[in-house]
């Protein structure tokens, strides 16, 4: 097994995927939910907009902590911005842009969610004294600006979700399992696609499922096809996961050893119980039932499902990272 990357990297990949997924769901809800219903004060959008910035910042700090050099010689991090042929440089730029922009999106969403907070902010004496800035705030198109920022955040979130998978897949020949292709003849790695679908699934879990359960809210009223979307995401995620293991196993060598470690080796219980059970089968059944009944199941079931999907997402990243085996003659 490779020993360079471990639990900290798995947490970073999880937070990156979760933040990106939550943001994409929020942006989706922002633009596609029914007009006149839940337009403002939508707790799903609130969570999806406010979570990504802080959790991505924590994830990035963990990454710097894991680098080691990042703490001892922080100025070396500047080099990460200048090697444009490196995927890490792309990721550094995406994270650098996404974190502050998603924080701005979160701030605007809070102001939109709680208009009293916006009014309170504008009425602060120190802001009133700043004449031009105060009049700028008075005339500020909050909703329109928020939607513009949301769009940019959504595009960057897509980049973050793909990048977390791309990051480890480019390690390529050193750890063949991570660069397992979609189909053997097509050298496109599965991991970015798997991580994207997993990000969407965990994003839907923390926004729609978690928020609806805790607040007894019903997003399906505003978006009747939501359970179908979530079911589709879960099934595609399961397909990519199956392809990853099947193709790795077929390719032989270190990649097959990694697949074996996951399917029947030291990571098999984590994989079958948490990744497949909590992350694919249980949510597929629950969202399938919700799709057919056209209404939400019991809050406790939905909450347990949401927490299970999140835990599955974390475990999946750990299993994939930990099962990486170096190529050897």
């Amino acid at each position, binding site marked *: 097994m490779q020993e360079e990357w471990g639990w900290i990297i798995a947490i970073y990949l999880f937070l990156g995927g979760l933040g990106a997924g939550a943001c994409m769901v929020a942006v989706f809800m922002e633009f596609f939910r029914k007009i006149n219903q839940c337009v403002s*004060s939508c707790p799903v959008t609130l969570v999806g907009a406010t*979570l990504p910035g802080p959790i991505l910042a924590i994830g990035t700090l963990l990454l710097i902590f894991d680098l080691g050099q990042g703490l001892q010689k922080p100025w070396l991090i500047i080099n990460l911005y200048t090697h444009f042929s490196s995927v890490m440089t792309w990721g550094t730029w995406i994270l650098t842009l996404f974190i502050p922009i998603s924080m701005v999106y979160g701030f605007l969403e809070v102001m939109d969610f709680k208009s009293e907070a916006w009014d309170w902010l504008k009425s602060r004496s120190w802001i009133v004294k700043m004449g031009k800035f105060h009049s700028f705030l008075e005339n500020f198109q909050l909703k329109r600006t928020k939607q513009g920022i949301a769009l940019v955040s959504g595009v960057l979130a897509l980049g973050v979700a793909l990048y977390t998978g791309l990051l480890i897949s480019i390690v390529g020949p050193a750890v063949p399992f991570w660069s397992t292709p979609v189909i053997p003849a097509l050298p496109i790695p599965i991991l970015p696609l798997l991580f994207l679908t997993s990000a969407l699934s965990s994003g839907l879990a923390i926004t729609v499922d978690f928020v609806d359960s805790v607040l007894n809210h019903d997003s399906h009223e505003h978006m009747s096809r939501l359970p179908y979307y979530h079911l589709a995401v879960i099934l595609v995620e399961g397909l990519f996961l199956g392809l990853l293991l099947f193709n790795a196993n077929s390719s032989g060598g270190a990649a097959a050893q990694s697949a074996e470690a996951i399917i029947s080796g030291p990571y098999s219980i984590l994989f079958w119980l948490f990744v497949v059970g909590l992350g694919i089968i249980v949510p597929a059944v629950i969202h399938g039932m919700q799709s057919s009944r056209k209404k939400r199941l019991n809050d406790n079931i939905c909450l347990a499902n949401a927490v299970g999907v999140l835990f599955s997402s974390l475990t999946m990243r750990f299993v994939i990272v930990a099962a990486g085996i170096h190529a050897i003659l």
Partner: protein
Amino acid sequence: MIPKKWPDWTISPIAFAVIIVLILLGSIVVPIVSGISPKDEPPIIKKGMIRFGSMKSQACVDCHTNKDALMDVANNSATVDEVFIDPVYLTGYHAQLGCSTCHLGNGEAKTFGEAHTNLLIAPSYYGDSRVESMCITCHGEISKRSINTIEPTIHDEFLDVRHKDPSIDRCSTCHGQVAHGSDPFTENSHITGIQTTCHTCHANFNDQSKLMCQDCHNNPHDMEADCNDCHSVEGWAIKSTVE
């Protein structure tokens, strides 16, 4: 589910707290579950580090590119010719790694003895355990890759089945001395390798008494024919006379 008096916006910090708790829970549960899982895990493979010893090989270069300096030590022109390195070879991809990256020793030493301590003369001879950190560091998966999609790979055949002779069990046997003038990136290592090695014992391809194409190439076509009927041995290209 949350108390009615709690405002809706508290859902955001609650969600944040749940994520933190899940990560802490995972930090406890994952090692425990891993501990009770089947133990037949693949061996932990400690990879060698590429040392990039070019900066630490200057003493090697100073001496081995200078025949006068070598003569001072060796006092034998045959030995000098054997260990002399033409400076023109030091610009290739592999040579840029530096001498000590592959040959170990001490490229910053002041004395002959110190410089050649722990020297690895044949870095690609995989009978030596130190070679684990040489060619294999970068080219580790090679034995499992098929050559031109033909299975089993020529490496498996060559290394594991047919030849167990330590004198030829090394990468350089077929691929040349990569840092000393042979360039595997531009040369056809298959042809040059086979011509310089296999032909030593197996004079002609597809000679019934010697080496057969299908000894390495596992019946690539679903037809019975002599390989030489269609293929040019020099380049494996289809002969122009074949219809």
